[in-house]
């Protein structure tokens, strides 16, 4: 089975597993919503402040949600050693990682798609006029979170205290994505809106660099 098809097969398996119970998607969505609400309770932002802190808040909430949601990616596989089963299949190890990165990416995107309209309403932010570039930055930024998140989930799955370890490793490592995505989003919400291409390019570069690193070194994480 060639690599892309194998990755898609793994993706299919992940999606089917999740869509049996939707537990991950629902709990992630609720968690992000809670974070967004809690922030507004703490800060009570005015309209002007919302425009300023809104983007940062959005990406922080996604980062927190991601670091919880990415956990089961590999810890689920330990229960009945299904990871061992995957490794026995005649597919490249990178395909397993790629499939998981894609599925985590997809789940995060679904959560974001549900979240953004609510977020826009709660914080009174004009998201509709900038929907297309906003979608672009959401996709690029989320890919960065999914890539590093999946790899670090694989790393943490070898260690004790993995539930605490994953957010601990993830949050410092993802600061470039946090900063750059926030900047782009803030630019889109400014008046008049601007597309801050330098930052967008940085997120794209982040994605490319780490997808390449995963391709080169990720397979070692799947060893037993």
């Amino acid at each position, binding site marked *: 089975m060639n690599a892309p098809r194998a990755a898609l097969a793994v993706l299919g398996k992940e999606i089917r597993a999740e869509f049996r119970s939707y537990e991950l998607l629902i709990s992630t969505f609720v968690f992000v919503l809670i974070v967004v609400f809690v922030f507004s309770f703490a800060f009570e932002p005015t309209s002007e402040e919302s425009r*300023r802190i809104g983007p940062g808040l959005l990406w922080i909430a996604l980062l927190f949600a991601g670091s919880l949601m990415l956990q089961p990616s590999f810890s689920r596989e330990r229960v009945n050693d299904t990871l061992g089963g995957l490794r026995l299949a005649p597919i490249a190890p990178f395909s397993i990682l790629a499939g998981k990165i894609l599925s985590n990416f997809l789940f995060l995107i679904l959560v974001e798609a549900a979240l953004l309209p609510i977020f826009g309403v709660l914080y009174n932010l004009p998201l509709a006029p900038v929907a297309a570039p906003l979608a672009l930055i959401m996709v690029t930024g989320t890919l960065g979170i999914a890539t590093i998140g999946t790899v670090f989930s694989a*790393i943490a799955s070898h260690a004790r205290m993995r539930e605490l370890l994953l957010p601990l*490793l993830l949050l410092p*490592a993802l600061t470039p994505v946090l900063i750059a995505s926030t900047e782009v989003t803030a630019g889109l919400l*400014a008046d008049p809106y601007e597309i801050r291409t330098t930052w967008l390019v940085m997120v794209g570069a982040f994605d490319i660099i780490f997808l390449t690193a995963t391709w080169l070194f990720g397979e070692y*994480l799947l060893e037993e």
Partner: protein
Amino acid sequence: MTGKTDGGAFMQAVRSFAVCALVCGAAYAAFFIAPTEKTMGDIQRIFYFHVASFMNAFVAFTIAFIANIFYLMRRSPKADWLGVSGVEVAVAFTSAGLLMGPLWAKPIWGHYWTWDPRLTSTFILWVLGLCYMLLRSLIEDPERRAVVSAVFSIFVFLDVPLVYLANRLPRGQHPKPVILGDTNSGLAPEMGRVLLYCFIALFVLMIALLRERYSLEQLRHEVAEIRAETESGYSASN
């Protein structure tokens, strides 16, 4: 126990003394030989050890990075020992640098911390170095620990320049962060020389600490092997 004492306790003491003398000499140079800086005065003398610490931290991280890649390719345990030693020593030097920075900033600007690109990315690097040490302590099997932490350190090494870049570009509507000043612009030659002395002295210290930490890891490996031998010896004789 051959080779471990490396020529005996006396040679060890001589080496330690030499390293200490070198470092003290560098500090003396920083305090008394270097010229006084025009605008900042004597507090600027922190610069010499502060910058030299970070430079050596960077060297140590690079050594660790190369060792870890080598480990992944060849699976030589020695490479793993060098990797962990490099990261630990680098974290120590980064800590020293991060301690000196705020003590320099406080009298000059009145506050201990600024969100300038170098300080922020150095802080993240420090945190990720601690994460590396934490990760290692949470994995028991030596081979798996080596592999997993090697991959992690590679990702960290690739991440840090990005963290630096992200902090360096000017941000949207936020006020510009207070920059610590481009300390290397127009460095007087005497200052450059003192900086070089300090770098060399701390480099020697760094290598000494690296070797010490490496031999600790090597000894741990030996103990594990002896233990395994002992256990199999008992079970064979029983």
